[in-house]
């Protein structure tokens, strides 16, 4: 299997007339790629996995593996393994036999089975618990057994449905590293579903961000963070979330566009404004900026600095989160862990132009004002 291609795939429940679980999804998952579907609960992620696995019928569109349509191929003929969120192990059967199960039902010869079970157990580091039974194991160990069972017959692709959500923080971190390591050793196509952005960032070659049954953006973790396609992606990825401000734009005939927040100047864009840009800038606009990009100081440094007031200051051990009040709106700023602030202390806030994102307030779409020759004229 080289590629998994979703071509205008939709899923509707209720005999195909209900609301969309997945709407018009087109995506090419490359051979040996680690693709993560990321989104809040209820955005259609599990339905995608189940359609790829063949456990769910496709309402509309075409699914192909390696350019061969597989819409009607039964699950067992797809050469795919699924690691479920709940591990679905046989609790009273020895770990060794749980792992061997997919090979036994395919009537592999016993020596081959033993060899593969030993290999899979070694890969996920459970060689020493092969004789034990799942009910005697911790959650993390059960998860490893489930992984070993998924990899044992070396299928062409692996599907993971929130495999770590049951585990506590420490185990989750260790298992995440194990899955990443396993991937770099196996080099098979991995499709992974999660609502946890850290997991997505840590594991993915590319991330597909889903919201309300629709694909919002697909890209490398870096692209998703630094170059979000719309306000939803920008807000969903990153912790604390990106700050958003409603801004006003005033345009002058000489081509300068002034961007202001609540009457205070934020930035000036200068250059030849083509008619399309002018049109875009006339609609209501939002500016987004990430918490670690906001600069602050006790004295005014730039003409475009905004006056703000300290609301809350939270120290989280490794870093601090500062909440400042700007007019009637709160902004989050990341600070070094030891920096302290007084409540209601005045602070000057600066948004560097190169770190500002612009979005249409109505559609949420990202506006690439970079096409203008941007620079601060003040």
């Amino acid at each position, binding site marked *: 299997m080289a590629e998994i291609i979703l071509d205008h795939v939709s899923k509707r429940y209720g005999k195909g007339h209900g609301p969309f679980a997945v709407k018009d999804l087109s995506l090419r998952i490359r051979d040996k790629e680690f693709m993560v579907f990321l989104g809040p609960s209820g955005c259609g992620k599990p339905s995608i996995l189940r359609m790829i696995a063949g456990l769910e019928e496709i309402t509309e569109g075409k699914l192909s593996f390696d350019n061969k349509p597989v819409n009607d191929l039964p699950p067992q003929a797809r050469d795919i393994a699924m690691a479920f969120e709940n591990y679905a192990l046989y609790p009273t059967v020895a770990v060794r036999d749980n792992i061997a199960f997919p090979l036994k039902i395919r009537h592999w010869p016993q020596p081959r089975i033993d060899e593969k079970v030993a290999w899979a157990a070694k890969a996920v580091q459970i060689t020493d618990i092969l004789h034990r039974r799942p009910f005697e194991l911790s959650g993390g160990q059960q998860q490893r057994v489930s992984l070993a069972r998924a990899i044992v017959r070396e299928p062409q692709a692996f599907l993971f449905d929130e495999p770590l959500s049951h585990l506590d923080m420490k185990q989750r*971190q260790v298992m995440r590293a194990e899955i990443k390591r396993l991937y770099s050793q196996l080099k098979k196509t991995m499709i992974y579903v999660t609502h946890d952005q850290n997991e997505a960032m840590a594991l993915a070659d590319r991330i597909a961000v889903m919201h309300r049954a629709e694909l919002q953006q697909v890209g490398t973790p870096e692209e998703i963070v630094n170059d979000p396609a719309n306000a939803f992606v920008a807000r969903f990825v990153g912790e604390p979330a990106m700050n958003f401000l409603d801004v006003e734009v005033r345009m002058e005939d000489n081509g300068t566009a002034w961007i202001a927040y609540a009457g205070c100047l934020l930035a000036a864009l200068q250059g030849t404004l083509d008619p399309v840009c002018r049109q875009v800038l006339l609609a209501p606009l939002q500016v987004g900026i990430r918490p670690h990009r906001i600069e602050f100081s006790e004295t005014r440094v730039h003409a475009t600095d905004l006056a703000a007031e300290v609301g809350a200051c939270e120290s989280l051990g490794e870093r601090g989160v500062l909440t400042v009040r700007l007019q009637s709106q709160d902004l989050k700023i990341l600070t070094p862990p030891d920096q302290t602030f007084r409540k209601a202390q005045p602070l000057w806030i600066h948004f560097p132009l190169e770190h500002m994102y612009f979005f249409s307030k109505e559609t949420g779409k990202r506006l690439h004002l970079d096409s203008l020759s941007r620079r601060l004229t003040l």
Partner: protein
Amino acid sequence: MADIVLENVRKCYSNHEAICDLSLEIRDREFFVILGESGAGKTTTLKMIAGVEPVTSGAILFNGQPIQNLTPEERDCAMVFETYALYPHLSVYENIAFPLRAPGRRMPDNQIDQAVLRIARILGIDPFLDRRPAALSGGQRQRVALGRALVRQPAVFLMDEPLSHLDARLRNEMRTEIKTMRESFGSTIVYVTHDYSEALALGDRMAIMHRGRIEQVGTPSQVFRRPANRLVAESLGDPPMNFLAGTITLDQNRSVFTRGSWRIPLPASPRLRGCVGKEVCLGLRPQHIRLDRARPDTPFSLPSKLFVQELLGDHAVASVAVGDRLFMALCEADQAYSLDELLYLAWAPEHMYLFLEDTGETLLAEGD
């Protein structure tokens, strides 16, 4: 307005001791956080303060007065639980006003109106006063629950994991809200959580509980930088502190941490001198570890092999194998290492922690 003192409090259920000899002083108007894993006895402690769970032995005092014999109503405590338990058939306004209409302490209507509006404004829920809980988001419902508990300005305000079932984003937002609002509360707050970042962010002081005992009480900065033992160190930080077992030996009359052929010098202190020959555990936080391809020019260094590297937006986490232990270190996002590459861990000596292996007691902490 009340200070709370727990003196040698014990709580036994039929077959086990849930709280063992707990003594604690919570100051008037303090925001006090109890941090611990599930089963540590946090909620039991809270319930004993509220009076819904009797103490087996020991005393609880509010403002110096023993209160074991007072009913929950007489103690002037309000409690917010993990589940908000709002009345679905009442509006937000009526939900908040409910405690003020309770028989026996019923307020006149105009005073109720003032109190409800005041608290709704603080919590930012005044636009929704006519709505039913079903028409609100999770975060808004949680605020209504807070409002209902706060409306009668209790002397003591008890919060049991009020944010734990919200999603991560909302939890962080509500945490900031609570932090911002607390000054307008005027109550002593006891807040229970299993989330270390909530504890560090909110608490004036905090206690770390484990299996019915208090491991340490201090300000967030004290417990983070100078944990009393390994358990406390382990429970604060994400990724958590890394540990490596070894022994303290003498090398040219200086104490050193030894594991196999590895030697790490330790500061000269009589306390460490007294521990020569003891089994210990070295602790390093992920953010204090630097990764180097070349052997660094410092004795505070260990060789390792890259297990896996994970990119997390603006930074990356590298898992490296140090002997048979897996360490996590934060590194730059643009620094890419290859699988099984030899890397040296290095750290500044002041960031080194050392714990006794058997008791977990801290021998060396930041700044020692």
